[in-house]
């Protein structure tokens, strides 16, 4: 049985595991999201409670994991407790290589344990470990360290875990892996929590065969050299994703104070340049990726009770948390943003959903729509936001509503016009023009990474017709499903052309022409929409918050409502014709 064909099934209810050979599935759908979507189709339907034992967590890797540079990611598929629809989330760290080198193509976790546990996958066996003592710990970081001490195979393993937010079933809780990478969006952390699953450890130390050894080394060298010398990865490597802060601000595409503006007067303070010069303490890479885009700030804080006692925390910063916990909340200093990120990491929350919800709450409180008790949320007031995060995770009264995300809050309290979500998922940090928002709207997981409309907004000279716009976005989304089946990091999309992918698959024994790959992308795109519709998604329910129209978007100015309406119509026709 070829390693990638093996699907490891784990049943938490019965504390059982078994392996299935799914060669046909991997031959047809390659791996990653391609295979994951098919497995999800088999496992769940519209009736499944996202937080019930019948929901499944599917992790998938693909042929490029561990095999080629930037082949570092793993995809998780599940039913999202936040949107009630498709849950699809990616993380790097060591997860992609560990699962691949453990000798599996996918891992499916089902059921619910009757008490808190974590599972450890080592050498073909699954160990069900008692996590009652770990349950309720205040920091996901500490949980990771405790497990790291106890489990073998340092360096070859991943430790995916949840914080308190996941235990408390906050539907935008994330799963943290290797301290600073995340299955961030759509609430995988709450699904873990609902299964009484504190963590998943997987170690992988295999040496897997290829079809043509010499050709494999040659192609590897070409890709390695492209990654090192082409300059395509440089921006990620030097400043990391926060290199976007200054250009987006200049463009007027940086959502600020709940998108009342596209420019933030303190953006410079939290730019990639400023954070690097003041705080950058270490850079890290995911396993099997040489880029080292992970930037850690060394935040030195004095203890209030004792002079000359300092705590230095390493805090991972990226563009998205800077947007959600910085500019959206009007936080004026890099230090303030880092402090908020630290709290969010400890609890294990999706920084983006949380930040957008807090921004809504700040405005809703200003407008008298909600009563937050004694707590007054003020733009830029880091302490009040930290208090709010604690109350959200503890989850009583109005805070239990904030814990359900911005769509829920606006439905209950009003303020829909400034509730920034798409399909129930809080908006990503790009207000660059119509393509960005059309991408959030039409993307299968309503993520900026589905189709990168923000990039189109910055490249296009003139507005395409609504139909052309939809074609561009859905075409890019289909292309990306192939990258997400390999599973390579999307930062390497400039390197991995279909031509190169085709050549790199060959020595691994997989023959796919460029045309085959294009066809595969379209098919995965279609199958994923089948899942969305099966889970009850209705295109006619798609909405764009009024605020998006009110605030001029980047270089495009105010977005035209009629244009967006026409584009959604075209999109609906497209999906209907596909399915």
């Amino acid at each position, binding site marked *: 049985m070829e390693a990638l064909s093996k699907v490891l099934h784990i049943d938490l209810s019965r504390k059982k595991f078994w392996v299935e050979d799914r060669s046909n599935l991997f031959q047809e759908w390659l791996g990653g999201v391609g295979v994951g979507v098919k497995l999800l189709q088999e496992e769940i339907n519209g009736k499944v409670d996202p937080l019930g034992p019948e929901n499944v967590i599917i992790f998938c890797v693909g042929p490029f994991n561990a095999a080629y540079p930037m082949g570092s990611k793993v995809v998780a598929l599940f039913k999202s407790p936040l949107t009630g629809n498709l849950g699809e989330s990616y993380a790097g760290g060591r997860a992609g290589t560990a699962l691949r080198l453990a000798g599996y193509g996918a891992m499916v976790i089902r059921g619910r344990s009757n008490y808190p546990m974590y599972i450890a996958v080592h050498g073909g066996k699954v160990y069900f470990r008692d996590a009652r003592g770990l349950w309720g710990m205040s920091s996901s970081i500490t949980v990771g360290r405790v497990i790291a001490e106890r489990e073998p195979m340092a360096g070859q393993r991943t430790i995916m875990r949840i914080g308190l937010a996941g235990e408390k079933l906050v539907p935008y809780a994330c799963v943290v892996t290797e301290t600073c990478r995340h299955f961030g969006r759509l609430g995988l952390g709450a699904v873990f929590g609902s299964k009484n699953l504190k963590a998943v450890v997987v170690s992988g130390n295999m040496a897997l065969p290829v079809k043509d050894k010499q050709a494999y080394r040659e192609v590897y060298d070409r890709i390695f050299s492209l990654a090192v010398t082409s300059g395509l990865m440089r921006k990620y490597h030097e400043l990391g994703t926060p290199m976007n802060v200054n250009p987006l601000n200049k463009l007027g595409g940086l959502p600020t104070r709940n998108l009342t503006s596209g420019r933030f007067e303190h953006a410079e303070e939290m730019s990639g340049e400023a954070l690097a010069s003041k705080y950058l303490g270490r850079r890290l890479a995911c396993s*099997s990726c040489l880029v080292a885009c992970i930037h850690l700030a060394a935040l030195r804080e004095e203890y209030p009770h004792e002079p000359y006692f300092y705590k230095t925390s390493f805090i991972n910063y990226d563009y998205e948390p800077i947007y959600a916990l910085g500019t959206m909340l009007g936080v004026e200093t890099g230090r303030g943003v880092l402090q908020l990120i630290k709290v969010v990491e400890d609890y294990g929350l999706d920084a983006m959903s949380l930040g957008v919800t807090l921004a809504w709450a700040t405005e809703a409180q200003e407008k008298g729509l909600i009563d937050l008790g004694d707590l007054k949320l003020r733009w830029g007031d880091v302490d009040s936001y930290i208090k709010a995060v604690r109350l959200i995770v503890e989850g009583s009264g109005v805070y239990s509503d904030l814990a359900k995300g911005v769509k829920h809050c606006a439905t209950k309290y009003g303020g829909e016009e400034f509730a920034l979500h798409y399909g129930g998922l809080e908006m990503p940090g790009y207000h660059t023009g119509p393509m960005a928002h059309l991408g959030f709207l039409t993307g299968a997981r309503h993520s900026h990474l589905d189709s990168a409309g923000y990039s189109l907004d910055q490249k296009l000279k003139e507005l395409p017709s609504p139909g052309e716009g939809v074609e561009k976005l859905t075409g890019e989304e289909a292309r990306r499903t192939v990258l997400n089946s390999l599973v390579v990091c999307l930062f390497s999309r400039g390197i991995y052309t279909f031509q190169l992918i085709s050549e790199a698959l060959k020595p691994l024994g997989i023959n796919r022409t460029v045309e085959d790959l294009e066809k595969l992308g379209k098919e995965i795109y279609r199958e994923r929409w089948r899942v969305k519709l099966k889970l009850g998604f209705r295109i006619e329910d798609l909405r764009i918050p009024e605020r998006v129209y009110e605030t001029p978007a980047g270089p495009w100015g105010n977005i035209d409502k009629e244009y967006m309406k026409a584009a959604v119509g075209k999109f609906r026709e497209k999906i209907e014709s596909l399915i």
Partner: protein
Amino acid sequence: MPLRISVVDSDLCVGCFSCVLACTRRLGLVGYGKSAIRVRSLGAIERGHIVVVCRACLDPPCAASCPEDALKPREGGGVIFNPDMCIGCGYCVGACPFGAVNWDDDLNKPIFCIYCGYCAKYCPYGVIKLEEVR
């Protein structure tokens, strides 16, 4: 003079595992399973990494621990491993103070660095290099 892999500065290491993957790829395989060089974090990834590889001892304790004739000291430092003589007892693993002797689960025998420098070619950050034993 004989060569070895030296760890220039482990603080430069970002944990990309390019060197570890290179060592197994040298044999035309994907992964870590045959690698003589290993990387791991210092208890948590944000604390940085260490690189563990044979330092080519002048008087190698691994060779001294071998009950067979599988490990011979190399002139000028390091060892030469003859797998045909190895019974897989694992004494060498325990004898190395660096933990630099890895294990091949498929063959049930240790893995020894051959000082070829293939791993160092793939280190993008200058953490390791091939140099003469000093």
